[in-house]
Structure formats: structure tokens, C-alpha cells
């Protein structure tokens, strides 16, 4: 019931953000039930039906291999969820832990946060490109690379917030009652960081989609055979004059999902504890 109350207080009266949340739920459902929803095999090649126009039986038409664009779009939702959720987990776990530990243990922090500074001297996509050059193209590596890029900003934000919380009276009280470092960090400080972390997660999810699509487009992201919205754009772009619709569907799906995630993030940020308002990124 707490979740329902949270959703009501965050999204109540915000029509656009509510629509965004509903859209994201639909994407998640499409990802889970892709094999049931897709009318065709997204990888089945049909040379006779290549580049057919949208209609029946191919709702969104077919690509230059004759694969059904609609089925590929549905399977692409899986990659959207995997990339988004994966990057968020990597970024929050590594970045969050580095930020919290650095703020709590100042000596350790002096070292770790300098390391973060160095990584932040590389613009985001460039850092991703450097890392991807060292690794093979795979789903896991794409997630890792994007996650690491956003771990840097997450570490900085959590560093500031943990520092603020560390000075609060309830932390002193916990110390006085004999709580250990682990207990203070994870049972007293962390619960206060949950809502800003959620906001951060929503923005990382949105940015990760754009970064992943950009990497796919450059031919340095997911393996070419994986059905993702970024790969669909990347593979079909040379056919844009003959079949302009091929780029419309995946493009609009990416835009809708990123836009929705940004709206949801905005709504969550506005509902957040005012103490942290200045710290949250994602203008």
C-alpha cells in the first residue's frame, strides 16, 4: 500500500507524467511477453517480402532482410529494459557505493573521489567509446560501459548527499547507541537516500537509452544481430529514402520511452525531500 500512496502523491494531477508511467509499463509488459505478442519470428528472413510497406500482415512493414518490423520492435523492448535496468544497477551499485563510502570515510574518499574526478575528465560518450574499444561487442559489455559512465556522476551526487546526512542528529544518536559503521551506513543513512536514488535511476535509465542507441548507430554497441531499437535504426538507415517508415517506428519508440522516463523522473524529483533538490542531476 505504501507503493500505491507513493505513486498517488507523485503522479496525482500530473497527466503527462502519468501517461509516461503507463507507457513505460506497456514497454515492460511487451518485454516480458514478447514471444506471445509478436506475430512473427523477429529473426526470420523472408527475401520475397523485403521492404514491404506497413499494412497486413506486416503491421510496421518489413526491413531489408524481409524481417517483420513490428515483431522486432516488440523484441526491441526487451533490450530497452535490459540496457536501462542493467545500466541503472551497475551505476547505482558501483557509483552509489563509492559515493557513500567516500563521504563516510574521508581518507578513503580523498582517494576514491580523485579517481572519479579523473574519469569525469572524459566526456561521457568518449569514455564509453574508449571502454568499448577494449571490449567485445555484447549486451553485457554495453550495459557495463554505460553503467560505468553514469557511475561517475552518481558517485558525485551520493557523495554530497551522504555528507549532508552524516551531519544529522540521528546519525549522532546512532553512534551514541553503539551502532557500527555498516549499520549506520546501510540502516540509517541509506533509507534516507532511497527517493533521490530513484530519481537518479530514472534519469540514468533515460540517458542510457540515448547512449545505447548512439553506440548502436556507430556500430559499437550491441551485436548487429540483436533486435534493439537502436540497431533497427542503424541497420535500416541506408534505406531511408526507399522506406522512410523503417526509421519512424524505432525512432518514435525510443523518443517516447526516453521522454516518458524523463517525465517520470521530473515528477519524482518534484515530490522529493526538499533537502536534496539542488543535488539531483538531469536538468
Amino acid at each position: 500500500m505504501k507503493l500505491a500512496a507513493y505513486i498517488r502523491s507523485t503522479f496525482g494531477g500530473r497527466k503527462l507524467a502519468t501517461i509516461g508511467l503507463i507507457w513505460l509499463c506497456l514497454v515492460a509488459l511487451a518485454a516480458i511477453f514478447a514471444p506471445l505478442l509478436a506475430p512473427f519470428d523477429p529473426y526470420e528472413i523472408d527475401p520475397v517480402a523485403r521492404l514491404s510497406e506497413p499494412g497486413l500482415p506486416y503491421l510496421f512493414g518489413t526491413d531489408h532482410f524481409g524481417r517483420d518490423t513490428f515483431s522486432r520492435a516488440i523484441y526491441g523492448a526487451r533490450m530497452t529494459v535490459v540496457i536501462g535496468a542493467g545500466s541503472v544497477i551497475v551505476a547505482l551499485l558501483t557509483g552509489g557505493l563509492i559515493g557513500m563510502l567516500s563521504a563516510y570515510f574521508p581518507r578513503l574518499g580523498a582517494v576514491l573521489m580523485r579517481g572519479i574526478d579523473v574519469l569525469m575528465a572524459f566526456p561521457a560518450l568518449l569514455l564509453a567509446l574508449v571502454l568499448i574499444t577494449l571490449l567485445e561487442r555484447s549486451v553485457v559489455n554495453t550495459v557495463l560501459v554505460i553503467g560505468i559512465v553514469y557511475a561517475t556522476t552518481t558517485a558525485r551526487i551520493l557523495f554530497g548527499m551522504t555528507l549532508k546526512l552524516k551531519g544529522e542528529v540521528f546519525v549522532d544518536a546512532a553512534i551514541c547507541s553503539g551502532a557500527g559503521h555498516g549499520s549506520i551506513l546501510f540502516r540509517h543513512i541509506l533509507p534516507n537516500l532511497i527517493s533521490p536514488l530513484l530519481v537518479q535511476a530514472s534519469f540514468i535509465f533515460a540517458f542510457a537509452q540515448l547512449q545505447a542507441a548512439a553506440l548502436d548507430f556507430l556500430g559499437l554497441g550491441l551485436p548487429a544481430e540483436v533486435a534493439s531499437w537502436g540497431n533497427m535504426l542503424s541497420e535500416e538507415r541506408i534505406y531511408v529514402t526507399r522506406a522512410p517508415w523503417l526509421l519512424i517506428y524505432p525512432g518514435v519508440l525510443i523518443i517516447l520511452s526516453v521522454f516518458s522516463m524523463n517525465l517520470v523522473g521530473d515528477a519524482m524529483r518534484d515530490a522529493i525531500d526538499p533537502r536534496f533538490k539542488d543535488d539531483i542531476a538531469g536538468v
Partner: protein
Amino acid sequence: MLVYTAKRLLTLIPTLLAASILVFLFIHLIPGDPAAILLGDSATPEEIAALSAEMGFDQPLPVQYALWLGNVLQGDFGTSVFFGEPVLTVIGRGAETSILLATMTMVWIVVFGIPIGVLSASYQGRWVDQVTSGGAMLFASVPTFWLGLYLILIFSVWLGWFPSSGFPSLADEGGVTNLRYLLLPSLTLAAPNAALIVRLVRASMLDVAREDHVRTARAKGLHPATVAVRHIFRNALIAVAAAFGFTFAALVSEAVVTETVFSLPGIGRLVVQSILRRDYPVIQGVILVIVVLYTLINLAVDLAYARLDPRVSLK
């Protein structure tokens, strides 16, 4: 101010050194003999052995790093595997396109981003605000290359108004009119960044509008437009100036994609092609140059910030 600037420059040195170590290690993290990697696939064993000896690849890593850094500081970034020319020459060729593209993009960001942001803040909560803020967020959600592809399709292929790709130098035939090649790319690159500036201008204007000096200005009967421009906008610009470093990083990242879409002979496309060609010396060189540039810009932004906002004390 001068002392402060000098101090800040000194603190940059450890960061830059650490970044240079990362860039240096990059070659060594790639599996294989670094000399063979630097020379590319066509190198003979003799050439590899010669370069190995020259670069000291048989020496311990710290010694190699010192040698490499010494070369870099003298402007020797190595030789491109693909072009067979010094890396700095290869980078220099892309500089004109990238600098012009960045400049035009900044012009669009200022011309569109700031006035729309002001408009949005002035009509807070009304339909003008809803349309402009919603539109800004929508543009920030569009993949750059997708926008670029459709701009090419509409304005180059269908309407034939602009060239779809490439960029001849301003020194070539056509002179300044060659800038038309950069119109679509710069608009593509500007769209998501201008959108962020709109949101930033709006947010910081609304922040400033809550302050006491604004209430005083209103109370003494100043015209609302005067209050908006002289008391709110001027202060709000400080936050916008502070975001310039962030905008630069975003421009660099998205220029990689935009230059690829429009086949512009700039530094961004050079990075991608070098990665695909396994031309590691060029990748190393470009990244080093961009990191140094980015760090210096961030410093300049911090210094400008301190200048613009007297409340920020220089310690």
C-alpha cells in the same frame, strides 16, 4: 584573481597526469604486442622490433610512460597507422570542421535556448510554458542521429535545399557560403543542447524570482519587463554560464554522432573511424587532446563563475 588562477592551474596537473596515465595504459590494455598494435596489421616483424626498441616497450611500464609523456609534451603523439602521418597532423585536419560546427551550434543554442527559456519562465504554468517546457523535454529525448537522418531526408533529399553530407574547407571554392554544409548538422547538434538550456534558464529564472531583491524591485514600482531583464535574467545567466562546461562535454559526445551522420571530416568522425580501423595512436591522441581541452574549459567556467557572482569567494 591571478594567484587563484595559478593555484587552480596547478591543481589541474594531478588530474591531467592521472588522465594521461589512463590514456597511456589504453594501448597496453588491448591484447597483443603494443608495437604491433601501433603499427597495424601490415607491419613486418623487423618494423615491430624496431618500434619496440624505439618506444622502449621492453622497459618497465613507468619508464615507458615517462618516455611517452616526454614525446607528447613535445607535440609528438606518434604516427597514424592508417594515414602514415603524425597524429597531430591528422587531428589538425579535422579541427576546422569541428571548431566551425561547434561555433555554429553554440550560436543556435544561445539564439534559441535563452529566449525560449525566458519566455517559458515568464509565463510559468500557463500554456506558453507548458508548450515550451514540454517541447524542450521532447527535444532532449530525441536521439541526435535520428533527427539528423530525417533533416537530411526532408531538407536535402526531398526539398534539395541543403547539401546532405561533407564539408569543403572555407578556403576552397565557395568560401563562406560553404557554411551551408554545416547548417543542418549544427541544428541537429543544437537541438538537444538548446533544450537543456531552455530548462536550465527557466529553472534558474524561477529560482532568482523568489529572492528578496526581486520583491524589492517589484515593490518600488519597476516595470515588470525591467525586473525580468535587469533583476532576474542577469542573475539567472550566471547559472547558465556555469553549465557551459557541461554543454561542451555534451557537444563533444554528440558531435561524434552528428559528424558521422553528415559525413563531416571532423574530429568526432575521426574517432569513430579510427576505432573501426584500429588506428590506436589516433584514438589515443584525440582523446588526450579532448580531455585537456575539456579540463581547461571547466577551469575557465569556474573562473568566470567566480567573476560573475561576487558571492563565490576565491579560496
